[in-house]
Every structure is written in structure tokens, then in C-alpha cells.
């Protein structure tokens, strides 16, 4: 069993597809993850399973890998004790979760934007450009900068979970670049495909951060680290001036416009 603890979860799922069902039952969302390089032994700690849940899950996984014999389940060493599942964020992490709320409001409007996509008119293209501007200014520069330049630097950046999050950021940036190229070519199909891919990517990415990554990080922070992060995030806020307010204005305006379109229909 020890050798499988040090294998990537994707490798294990590929070899034993039944294990995906067990992971899903324990709300471990590794199955659809595009990277899947986290090691099995790290997944238990990252997902904050209680010791008895860990034993049950490992026993089920061992049962799939070694169906014909009984296997001793090794105890996985943790840096931090498992704590109750109710999520309570420290103030700096709460700030990031609150920023996700505005990003989620934009992501929720993407299907409607795709439905009414018009790449031929100036007005139609401008709407997509404004959406891209929101992604670049708010989601990427303002929010992801806090993660990549401050938060992730508190951890070993070679950790698979951090690498996975950074890869998601890069994939998002690639979709944005592709949207702009497609928009320039008036390629409606490509614009809508990249918008949809961005929506799917961000929905999953935010869920992973809110429910798994941030609570895991919070469990490892000392109070000193919490204060330092809070101060550094405030410095970033000052650096960005009225960007968050302008971006919120865009979302409010777009929501109003979409609501109005629905009423007219």
C-alpha cells in the first residue's frame, strides 16, 4: 500500500477507475481535476478527513487495489490535526473568498452572454471586451496577484496543489488571449467556446479554493502569519485603488442589463 500512497491520484484513478467513486463519495473532487498530480497521501491531509473517515476511505481504496488479500492500512502523518468541517476563514482568507463572490457573479452571467453573443456589431464586441477587462483587471491582476505574489509564497511552490492552482490561472489566461483573437476575427463559435471553457474552469477552480485549498492553508497559519497576510493584502488593495469598485460597477450594470433583457423577453 505504501507505494500507492506516493503515487499521483490521476495515475491511481487511471489504473483503478473504481477508486473515483470512493473519492466522490468523500467529496474529494480529484476526479475531474485536469492536473491530478497530488499524491494519494497528501490528499487525505489537504481534504481534512477525520481519522475514522481516513481509515474507511483507505480501506476501500486498498480493497480495490488488493481485492484478494487483507492489507495493513498505514497511518498518514499529518502536519496539522483534523478539525471540524465547518469552514471558518481567517480575515485575509475571508477577503479572498469575498473577492470570489464578485468573480462568481460574472461567471454566472457567461451563459447569458454566450446566448446573446454578437460579434458583428461594435456594441456586441464591446460587451465581450468589457468582460475580458473584468477578468484581467479583477480576477487576474487584483485577485490572482494576491495569491501568486503573496499567499502562495508562504508555501513550498513546488507543492502539487499550488502548482495545480497556478496551472488553472495560466489556463484561464490562455482562454482570455484566445477570446481576443477570436473576437478580432469575428469568430463567434470560438469566442463562445472559450467563454464557456473559462466559465467551467473558474467555477471548479473557485470551489477547490474555497472548500479545500484555503481551509487547508488556514489550518497551517500561525496568528503572526494571519496578521502579515492581512497587512499585505491591504497594501495590494491600496495599490489597485478604485479598480475593485469599477469592476463591481461593471458587474452591477451587466446584471441589470441581463435582468432587463429577461423582462423584455
Amino acid at each position, binding site marked *: 500500500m505504501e507505494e500507492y500512497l506516493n503515487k499521483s491520484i490521476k495515475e491511481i484513478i487511471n489504473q483503478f477507475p473504481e477508486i473515483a467513486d470512493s473519492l466522490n463519495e468523500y467529496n474529494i473532487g480529484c476526479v475531474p481535476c485536469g492536473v491530478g498530480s497530488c499524491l494519494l497521501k497528501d490528499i487525505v491531509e489537504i481534504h481534512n478527513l477525520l481519522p475514522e473517515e481516513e481509515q474507511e476511505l483507505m480501506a476501500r481504496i486498498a480493497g480495490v487495489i488488493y481485492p484478494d488479500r487483507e492489507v495493513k492500512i498505514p497511518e498518514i502523518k499529518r502536519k496539522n490535526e483534523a478539525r471540524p468541517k465547518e469552514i*471558518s*476563514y*481567517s*480575515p*485575509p482568507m*475571508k477577503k479572498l473568498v469575498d473577492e470570489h463572490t464578485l468573480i462568481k457573479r460574472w461567471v454566472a452571467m457567461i451563459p447569458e452572454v454566450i446566448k446573446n453573443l454578437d460579434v458583428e456589431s461594435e456594441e456586441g464586441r464591446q460587451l465581450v471586451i468589457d468582460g475580458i477587462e473584468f477578468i484581467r483587471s479583477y480576477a487576474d491582476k487584483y485577485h490572482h496577484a494576491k495569491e501568486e505574489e503573496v499567499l502562495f509564497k508562504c508555501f513550498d511552490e513546488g507543492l502539487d496543489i499550488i502548482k495545480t492552482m497556478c496551472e488553472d490561472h495560466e489556463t484561464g489566461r490562455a482562454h482570455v488571449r484566445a477570446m481576443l483573437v477570436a473576437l478580432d476575427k469575428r469568430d463567434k463559435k470560438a469566442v463562445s467556446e472559450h467563454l464557456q471553457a473559462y466559465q467551467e474552469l473558474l467555477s471548479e477552480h473557485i470551489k477547490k479554493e474555497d472548500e479545500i485549498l484555503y481551509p487547508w492553508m488556514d489550518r497551517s497559519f500561525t*496568528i*503572526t502569519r*494571519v*496578521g*502579515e497576510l*492581512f*497587512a499585505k493584502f*491591504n497594501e495590494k488593495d491600496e495599490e489597485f485603488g478604485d479598480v475593485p469598485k469599477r469592476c463591481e460597477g461593471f458587474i452591477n450594470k451587466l446584471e441589470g442589463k441581463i435582468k432587463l433583457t429577461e423582462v423584455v423577453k
Partner: protein
Amino acid sequence: MTELEGCPGAKMVDLRNEGDQEETTGKVTSQLKQWPIQLHLISPTAPYYERADVLLTADCVAYAMGGFHPEQLKGKSIAIACPKLDEGQDVYSAKIKSWLEDARINTLTVLIMQVPCCMGLLNLAQEAVQSSAVKVPIKAIIVSLQGEILSEQWAM
């Protein structure tokens, strides 16, 4: 009925038979790195408050918690106060505000007893932080009469 008989903060409780009587062996090192500590006496701009993680604790806590020094005080600068009995608490508000604005403290932990009157210290700290242009994370820890932590949460 005496003046304090109806008050949970002053209600008589006999804890002599509570829990085990385990004795700690060996000397517990003091983690106090400053003087004075009473909130009326401290200067909020004393060097040990600058950029520090500050512990604002109700007077009774250190007597209730067996592990107060290693578990709570270690690594922090401190001030103590009693929200029920101390006078001149407007000075307390001003000093907490000065911790934020002048000493630029890193965090504020408010450690109080479970008795209702102790909540006044947390309210005082929260109001001071709200009225300040500078914000810091506040953690509220509530301790039982037996010295156990009943709750520990971010209050701001």
C-alpha cells in the same frame, strides 16, 4: 441578597472537585516580556507593541488557565483589564486605537472568561478597531471557569 448575587460574573462556584488534580512538575517559564501590563498603565507606543501580536486579556483568565504562559502569552505582547470593574474605559478605547494607528500592531487576540460581563472587553476592542482607519485581525477566545477554551474565532 447582596449586590452581586444575581450576577453570573460574581456567582459563587466551588470547583474543588472538578477534573483531575494533576500537578505539573518542573518549572514553567514565564513568557512575560514587558512591564507594565495593566491597560491603564501601559503606553500603547511602547516598543514591544510595535508590529506585535497583542494579547488583550481579562484579569481573571491567567488564573483560570493552567497553561496561560506557554499556550497564550508566548510570542505576544500583553495588556490586562477588567471590563466589569475598571473605571475610565474611554481611555482603554483610545489606547487600543493607538495600538492600531501608532504601534501598527499585527493582530489583536482578546482572551476573556465565559461570564457575560467579560464580553464587554471584546466589544470595546471591536468598537475601537471599527473606529480606526487601520484594521487588524481580531481573534476572540472564550475560556471556561475550569480554564478550558470554549470557543476560538475570528471576530473581525
